[in-house]
């Protein structure tokens, strides 16, 4: 298991050092600094073995987090833990920076004592930790935005500093015995991610379907590869211990229901259902239930979390089509014409559209004409960047460029890197639809209808490239 955990700043100075096991000596801290942080080379592996001690590290901005061990640990677990550690720290004090780590070092030590015991990760859910960790996070001014939706935040603005106290700032001694055992059973229990007794005046749910669509297309318009990786991100502000059930137009579920229900249903829904290649869930989701019934049921954590991730490769709606036309006129001139076509409902608007057209290294001058938006030749990036703020569906726009080239003796042909595109669309390119999100709270007197639910779809470009 993890023998020691160290946090360094970018210079390699130790900010936090916690040794869990006797086999990790004091020199281990220096070994990592000398061999990895101060190494001249770029990092060639996140796992380094120095003198029979293995160091597994991640880097967040300028901060290095390294776990040291002398055993054959579960490396995946160690990395997952390091990420989790970052999440927990971020939840307490925002951005992980040298300043924040130094400001919160006592908190970090307390956290490290709690979430790692003898190198074994214990409960690391922020919601649960906040119930019994005595220290509070101190956020520096610039590093956070206060969400309007966080009801338990108290503002104390003095001298440009804001201190965020969460409800758990009442020191532990103030817990009654009952509360104490409640805490412990929650921390160790089946629902370690949620504490009891949460109350909201207004029960609210925010559900975002965030997708990134990836494409590689041939110049002739043939799809070489396309996939969507999506996430369902939730913010839940619900009282008590609500039981939730999430439903989407998953093909397997709909086909199953279709068998039982009328044929009309199949005809109606069959077209809209999507085939999900694979999905993973937050630990609150009952996996065995998903495995057998393919239903997604869970008791949600409080606040922000990522409910699921999924991946689809079939029947993807490609929001844009890029049609490139490159003509080499002689040896010193190049004519490029790029047409983009939006391929979605004309009532919808795509935003933040950016087309990047690579130019040869020998480019000496570029003349651009575009119908919409702004285009610029960026010599330092060897590309023409064409930006369009908004574009409705079923439209088309084009840019033409004349590129002057320097004459060279180099016979090597220009490799013609693909044209890439960035955009944001208000729908899910995978075709995923949220069918329902039901909330039941048996003990409290609010029903599914009382919960205000917000659903939003955002489709963004991942690597969206067309070869030319």
């Amino acid at each position, binding site marked *: 298991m993890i023998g020691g955990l160290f946090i360094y700043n970018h210079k390699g100075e130790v900010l936090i050092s916690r040794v869990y096991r006797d086999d990790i000596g004091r020199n281990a801290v220096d070994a990592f600094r000398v061999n990895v942080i101060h190494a001249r080379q770029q990092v060639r592996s996140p796992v380094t073995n120095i003198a029979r001690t293995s160091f597994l590290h991640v880097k967040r901005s300028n901060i290095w987090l390294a776990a040291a061990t002398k055993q054959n640990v579960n490396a995946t677990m160690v990395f997952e*833990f390091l990420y989790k550690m970052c999440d927990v720290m971020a939840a307490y004090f925002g951005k992980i920076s040298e300043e924040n780590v130094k400001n919160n070092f006592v908190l970090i030590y307390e956290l490290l004592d709690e979430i790692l015991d003898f190198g074994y990760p214990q409960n690391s859910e922020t919601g649960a930790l906040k119930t019994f960790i005595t220290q509070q996070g101190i956020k520096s001014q610039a590093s956070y935005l206060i969400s309007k939706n966080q009801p338990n935040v108290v503002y104390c603005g003095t001298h440009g500093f804001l201190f965020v106290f969460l409800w758990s700032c009442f020191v532990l001694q103030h817990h009654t015995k009952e509360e104490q055992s409640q805490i*412990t059973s929650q921390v160790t229990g089946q629902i370690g991610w949620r504490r009891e007794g949460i109350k909201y005046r207004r029960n609210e749910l925010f559900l975002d379907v965030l997708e990134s669509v990836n494409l590689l297309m041939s110049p002739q318009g043939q799809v070489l590869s396309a996939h969507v990786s999506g996430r369902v991100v939730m913010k839940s502000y619900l009282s008590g211990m609500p039981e939730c059930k999430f439903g989407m137009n998953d093909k397997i579920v709909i086909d199953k229901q279709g068998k039982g229900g009328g044929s009309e249903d199949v005809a109606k829904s069959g077209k809209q259902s999507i085939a999900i290649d694979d999905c993973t869930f937050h630990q609150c989701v009952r996996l065995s239930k998903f495995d057998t019934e393919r239903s997604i049921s869970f008791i949600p954590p409080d606040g922000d979390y990522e409910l699921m991730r999924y991946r689809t490769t079939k029947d993807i709606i490609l929001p844009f089509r890029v049609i490139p036309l490159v003509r080499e006129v002689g040896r010193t001139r190049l004519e490029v014409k790029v047409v983009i076509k939006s391929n979605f409902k004309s009532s919808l608007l795509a935003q933040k559209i950016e087309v990047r057209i690579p130019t040869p290294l020998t480019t000496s001058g570029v003349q651009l004409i575009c119908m919409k938006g702004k285009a610029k030749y960026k010599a330092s990036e060897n590309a023409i960047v064409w930006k369009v703020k908004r574009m409705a569906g079923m439209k088309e726009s084009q840019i033409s460029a004349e590129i002057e080239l320097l004459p060279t003796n180099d016979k090597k042909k220009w490799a013609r890197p693909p044209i890439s595109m960035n955009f944001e669309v208000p729908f899910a390119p995978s075709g995923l639809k949220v069918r329902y999100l039901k909330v039941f709270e048996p003990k409290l007197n609010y029903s599914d209808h009382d919960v205000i639910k917000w659903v939003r779809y955002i489709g963004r470009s991942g690597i969206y490239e067309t070869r030319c």
Partner: protein
Amino acid sequence: MTDSKYFTTTKKGEIFELKAELNSDKKEKKKEAVKKVIASMTVGKDVSALFPDVVNCMQTDNLELKKLVYLYLMNYAKSQPDMAIMAVNTFVKDCEDPNPLIRALAVRTMGCIRVDKITEYLCEPLRKCLKDEDPYVRKTAAVCVAKLHDINAQLVEDQGFLDTLKDLISDSNPMVVANAVAALSEIAESHPNSNLLDLNPQTINKLLTALNECTEWGQIFILDCLANYTPRDDRESQSICERVTPRLSHANSAVVLSAVKVLMKFMEMLPKDLDYYGTLLKKLAPPLVTLLSAEPELQYVALRNINLIVQRRPEILKHEMKVFFVKYNDPIYVKLEKLDIMIRLASQANIAQVLAELKEYATEVDVDFVRKAVRAIGRCAIKVEQSAERCVSTLLDLIQTKVNYVVQEAIVVIKDIFRKYPNKYESVIATLCENLDSLDEPEARAAMIWIVGEYAERIDNADELLESFLEGFHDESTQVQLQLLTAIVKLFLKKPTETQELVQQVLSLATQDSDNPDLRDRGYIYWRLLSTDPVAAKEVVLAEKPLISEETDLIEPTLLEELICHIGTLASVYHKPPSAFVEGSRGVQHKRLPGSAGSGESVESPDPGAAATETPPAVIPSQGDLLGDLLNLDLTPTTTTGPPPPTTSGMQMGAMDLLSGGLDSLVGLLHQGPPSLSASPSTTTLGGDIGGNPAMGAAFGAAPATMPASFNAPGSGGLDDLFDLGGGVGMPMGALNPPKAVWLPAMKAKGLEISGVFVRRAGVIQMEMTLTNKAMSVMTDFAIQFNRNSFGLAPAGPLQILTPLSPNQSIEPLNNLQVAVKNNIDVFYFSCQYPISMLFVEDGKMERQVFLATWKDIPNDNESQFQIKDCHLNSDAASNKLQSSNIFTIAKRTVEGQDMLYQSMKLTNGIWVLAELRVQAGNPNYTVSSISLKCRAPEVSQCVFQNYEAVLKN
């Protein structure tokens, strides 16, 4: 108000100030002081002097302060064991605290203090905490047992904590179960043979239940523990798999990979025709692909594991090639791993896509990545035969870029392609040769040299190319030196005429001027091979090489199996067994996959072959530099699919008798020389024209051509005369005709080997010599001279060697005789022993009377007696035999069943030797038993006796 200020106080007398603050009455001030202490501790300052003051702060009801003090204690207790005792009381008291969080904190911290005296006090509180009503305390106590075991294993066993821990596996709280499993697994690891984790269907069932309920980390502990279990049969295996598969949808990659480990292992037990087996295979692919969208570090671990999984079960991911395509923003370690897997998954179906990708990668920035991409193109060519041509042309395109490292890498892989498809793509050699000068890496140089050597016959200026490398021989790395040596020897065997100097140069560089034993040994082996039997040399060095296997870089099957059992762990990242990087007893246990479907074989089965027998793929070490290694033996796996390497026969050839080898080929090839010559020692002959054309000599399999030559030859001149001499001189049958012995080994005479024998024919002593040229160049201008010797032997005529002696040719026809033989190269001295019988002249028969008189006349001191054993001849036969050696029987008489033979002989210088030979006649076989020799010069007696013995026993 932030904590960072604690990092900045570096005033003098700081410790003193802190001391004062720690002893302050105000709680807040104390807390501040302890925080400062901990900040100093973190940055590496020694604050152990404050130990008593900090410990004093421990007795507080403020949990925050308590935690801070405990943190300090954990760090310094070891260096201040006596002081640490002061804390014990508080710990024990805290373990009784009504607040479960404090109880747990106390037991957790106590376990971290590695001081023996404290450990003693830990036992009682720990026992209580293990049975605490609060699950939070129990789960903390469970881990504490592992801590205590690490400090004092014996104590844990004596106190019976292990049993309590085992009981916790049945605890109602899932997190307690998970921590107990983790603690037990760790303790069990250091006791490989103990049955601590007594896994049986009941406990497994409990674990599987807890799996659904505990935290993500707990699930990992439980899955890792499950992976050590061996189900009794395939049904149990299937039911566990069914309950583990839902974990594949967990957001935590570690849960997913640990589940994959369990499934990969238990799948071994499922019959392959089972429907469920196929379902499971299908279920495994999506989660593995999903891992690739995790953070880069996790992707790296996942990719290292996928590399193993793909080797074990290629069917799982065979359709998922695209997800392994490298993204521009991937960190370099992810890119490199993806490339590896792309090659593993490359097949005829997807090769076009893969090649297109690889070509893109080859133009990237990172040197390592580009190199690997270029190498990958070569591996594609080797793996997918249909793509070979496209790969080669892609590589040629890359060579045209003239980017130094790309060119070098391309040459290295082209060498491999030649090894796989010999005689197919030689047209590219010209292009390769153009880039000769730009090669500065040993591997590329060695590869290029190998190519030149291998295809020397097609490269016109191969000798020049190799010579250019030879100039800086000593500055080259060993790899290049070895390759250069082999290549030049190959070149010589292919084009012997122009390259003799070169080969001699490299042989002497390798053998005489090098300190490297490998190089020297290889040099000597070649040298000897070339000098003793060039035919064999050719067969060995130019043997057809086994084709390299299509799958390279495979992990050895038994190691692969072990690594599959370690999926997700560091072992799977390093691709090394845990014993390779873990100290001590942990990890020494070698895990193994369970037996195949239905056999229900236990994992602990000591039969290592059980799992390994199923057709392991041929493994070729990835170091391509071994290519073209001498004999290629070390490279030839027994399982190679290619034709069996002919090297073994080559080896036998090498050991074959020189004469017979030459004989066969010569008789077969030349049909020259009268076959009747067999009676003569100069059995094989060679026409002068052959001798005159050295190139031909070598061309004809470089057989050692033999050629009679003689001095004392009557009418010396043409070759025919020599034949006459050899064959025409009638040899009395039964005459002593010893085989030729090597007098002058080639090693001592710069390639000239002389073997010879003395014979006496028609009253003339002849020294018959076979001169063999084992060197690389033609020898001419032979001459011979004898040193002064006892019997005054001298050459009767000049050494007649008619033609220049071309390499690998030999000439044949000539008691201590020192001989000097001269040729164009040097003068060589050697000595040989001639049998004394050579000197017995034909008129050595004494008159009876003279014999009697002489016998008496010679003093008895000069008589020497010898025993002859195991010689079964009657007196007449012995007499006849001896007569042919010019030993004459003068008289014979029979006394008491013994035949007495009186004999005389005369040496060339006039010395008479008289002999009395006793032959036992009584036995069924007559036996010559003893001999008395009398001579005026007793020195010769020994020689004469030896001659007797030789003649009689012959």
